[in-house]
């Protein structure tokens, strides 16, 4: 059994032989066609230049961390767009004086489109290659040169514009933040003036004071209840005692009492103001007693005048225990009243303090907010100011074209050899193509044809026995025809090849 490759080769040879007329005619026609095309193929000269770019986006470092940067576009695409732009192409046409030939704006557009199509811009990181093809080598060189120069100039101008824009943007932002900062500063000031009592640390003070007042209130309330208990027990005791042991003059007693109160008052006056509640109270009591004495005196007068007989002896002494209890009761009463009044006062001032505390809390919250605003604005403003200064430097660098490194890495050249397909390619490729194409067509068509062309397929695919394989039997007339056609085909083949050889030799000789 033949290997698949062997089979294919045999198949190809057999089919080629079977269709030799088609193959030979196609071969010769294709050969001559290739020759013709090759002879008339336009010569294309390519000039190229590469530009080294060390470009950094100006906004990148300037705005690092402060803003999210938009994605940087593919450099070669940008370059292609710049080079394909009307601006540069018009300048190139002007420089090469091609625009003189343009009769109408449409002509000009067509010329520009032509340049655009014949220009190839390829970019690697940091290297842009501009390639221009033309039938005129000088023109190819000139246009490549101008394209590169204008591209560099345009890029520099673009970059300057870009950094200027960046500066302006940052500047405007800085101004806006400055405004905001001033505003928040102003707000803070106004708030502080409006709330003078709210000085820093007042919250702590109020807390302490409240604690003290609460303790005091507690103490007073305790004292008050003690005093009340005492008074109750005094009243009980007093009711069990005889009022009179010896009848003391009531006025006498009152005088003694006034003297006592007076001395108490004097003691209090040493440490308190006249407005102190105890003092007020003592004063009131003394007043009361004096009034009682005065009343006593007048009744005694009337009594001595009218019913002197009923008057008991002045010398009769009142009961001393009773007296004592009475005195203590008075004292306790005084104490209770004093305490009650102090309790009220203390309670009121505690409430006041509480109120104040609440106000101060609100104030604190608002103050914190204002301060925060102020701080944030101040920080951003400081940052922007710093960046603005860097931007200013960058802008100045670009203005003076010192910040960008963009230089022609490989200068354009005048091409002396045409690029692309040349006659020699046609001379070599033509025969190969002319040979392979018709054979390929024949083989492909035969391969696609489902009809049986080998006995192996009958055996393999159908499993039917093949008794024999018969070749074609030529009768003499067929033989003669075959000879004639073979001769004719050979002549055709030889003619085609000879033509080809002659043309190639002429052409190559003419060039050399």
């Amino acid at each position: 059994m033949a290997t698949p490759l062997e089979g294919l080769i045999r198949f190809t040879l057999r089919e080629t032989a079977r269709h030799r007329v088609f193959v030979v005619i196609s071969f010769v026609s294709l050969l001559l066609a290739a020759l013709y095309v090759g002879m008339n193929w336009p010569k294309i000269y390519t000039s190229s230049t590469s530009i080294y770019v060390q470009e950094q986006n100006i906004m990148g470092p300037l705005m690092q961390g402060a803003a999210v940067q938009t994605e940087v576009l593919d450099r070669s695409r940008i370059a292609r767009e710049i080079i394909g732009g009307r601006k540069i192409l018009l300048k190139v046409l002007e420089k090469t004086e091609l625009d003189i030939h343009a009769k109408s704006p449409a002509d000009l557009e067509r010329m520009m489109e032509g340049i655009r199509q014949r220009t190839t811009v390829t970019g690697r990181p940091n290297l842009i290659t501009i390639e221009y093809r033309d039938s005129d080598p000088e023109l190819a060189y000139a246009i490549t040169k101008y394209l590169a120069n204008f591209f560099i100039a345009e890029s520099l101008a673009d970059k300057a514009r870009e950094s200027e824009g960046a500066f302006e943007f940052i500047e405007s932002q800085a101004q806006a933040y400055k405004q905001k900062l001033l505003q928040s500063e102003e707000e803070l000031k106004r708030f502080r003036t409006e709330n003078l009592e709210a000085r820093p640390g007042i919250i702590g003070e109020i807390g302490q004071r409240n604690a003290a007042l609460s303790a005091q209130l507690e103490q007073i309330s305790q004292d008050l209840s003690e005093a009340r208990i005492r008074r109750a027990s005094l009243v009980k005791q007093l009711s069990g005692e005889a009022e009179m042991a010896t009848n003391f003059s009531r006025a006498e007693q009152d005088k003694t009492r006034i003297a006592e109160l007076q001395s108490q008052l004097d003691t209090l006056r040493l440490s308190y103001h006249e407005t102190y509640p105890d003092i007020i109270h003592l004063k009131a009591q003394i007043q009361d007693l004096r009034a009682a004495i005065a009343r006593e005196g007048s009744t005694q007068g009337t009594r001595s005048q009218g019913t002197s007989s009923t008057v008991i002896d002045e010398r009769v002494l009142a009961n001393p225990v009773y007296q004592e209890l009475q005195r203590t009761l008075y004292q306790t009463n005084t104490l209770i009243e004093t305490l009650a009044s102090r309790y009220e006062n203390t309670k009121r001032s505690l409430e006041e303090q509480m109120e104040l505390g609440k106000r101060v809390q609100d104030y604190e919250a608002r103050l914190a907010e204002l301060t925060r605003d102020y701080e944030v604005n101040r920080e951003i403003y400081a940052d922007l100011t710093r960046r603005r200064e860097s931007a200013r430097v960058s802008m100045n660098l670009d203005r003076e074209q010192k910040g960008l490194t963009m230089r022609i890495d490989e200068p354009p050249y005048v091409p002396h050899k045409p690029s692309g397909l040349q006659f020699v390619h046609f001379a070599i490729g033509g025969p190969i193509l002319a040979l392979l194409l018709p054979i390929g067509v024949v083989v492909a068509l035969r391969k696609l044809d489902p009809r049986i062309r080998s006995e192996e397929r009958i055996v393999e695919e159908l499993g039917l026995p093949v008794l024999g394989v018969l070749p074609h039997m030529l009768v003499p007339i067929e033989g003669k025809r075959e000879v004639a056609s073979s001769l004719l085909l050979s002549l055709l083949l030889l003619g085609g090849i000879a033509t080809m050889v002659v043309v190639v030799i002429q052409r190559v000789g003419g060039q050399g």
Partner: protein
Amino acid sequence: MSKIQEALDKIRAGQELLPPRKTPSPAISGRALKANTEILPNAGGGAAEITLMGEQSYRSPTELVALRTISGAMSDGLVLNAIRELRTSVLQRLDEGKRIVMVTSTTHRAGNTFVARNLAAAIALDEGKTALIVDCNLRGPSASHLALGEDRPGLREFLKNPELSAEDIIHRTGIARLRIIPAGNDMEGMREFFTSIRLRELMEELEQRYPERYIIVDAPPIMHAADARILADVCDHVVLVVPFGRTTTKHIIQSAKAIGKEKFLGIVFNDKPELPRVWW
């Protein structure tokens, strides 16, 4: 050249028959000896008959080539060998005592007449065997050209006219040990010939006539004529001719099915092109 060829054939056949006869000079054409052929008796049987039939070839190799028929002396060894190989493999496959081989094809102009004629001619190369071509291709009787003489009664006449015997329609071909029954000339009323009992009788008679006679029936394409299928019934074996590049596998399968497994002998792949040979 032809002597050596014949000798080789003889050895291959393994039979030592009569000593080879003197080969005629190529100058003597079949047509020139036409009168002679008619004198020779047609009847008889056995080895003696074969001897009698083993007359000289009256046709020169050149003439035979023009008729696309092989001869032992032909110069195109490639075709000759291919046909002899075909003959050998056909004969090997034949069942004992069954010697009627029908040659049909998948399509028209597949070359089955060429195959039938040359298969018969190749069998006749062997001096121990004779061959008879029956041209059943009534619509295109191309095998009949081999018959010597014109307007000879053939199959048609035989089937129509009960008075004719088998001998009347067997004719010489100008090739040693090869006879032919041509299709005949009577073109009228030529439908449904093959259904007649007379055909079956003819075949039986032909088969029994000589022990070493092989009957090659040239039939129309199996898929294109009902005739072919009827004919297949009266034949022992069927050979299917598949022309190069003109038949799909589906077509072959259909044809093989139409023939039937029992009688299907095999396929002859015909007209396969070789690299061009310059032939003078």
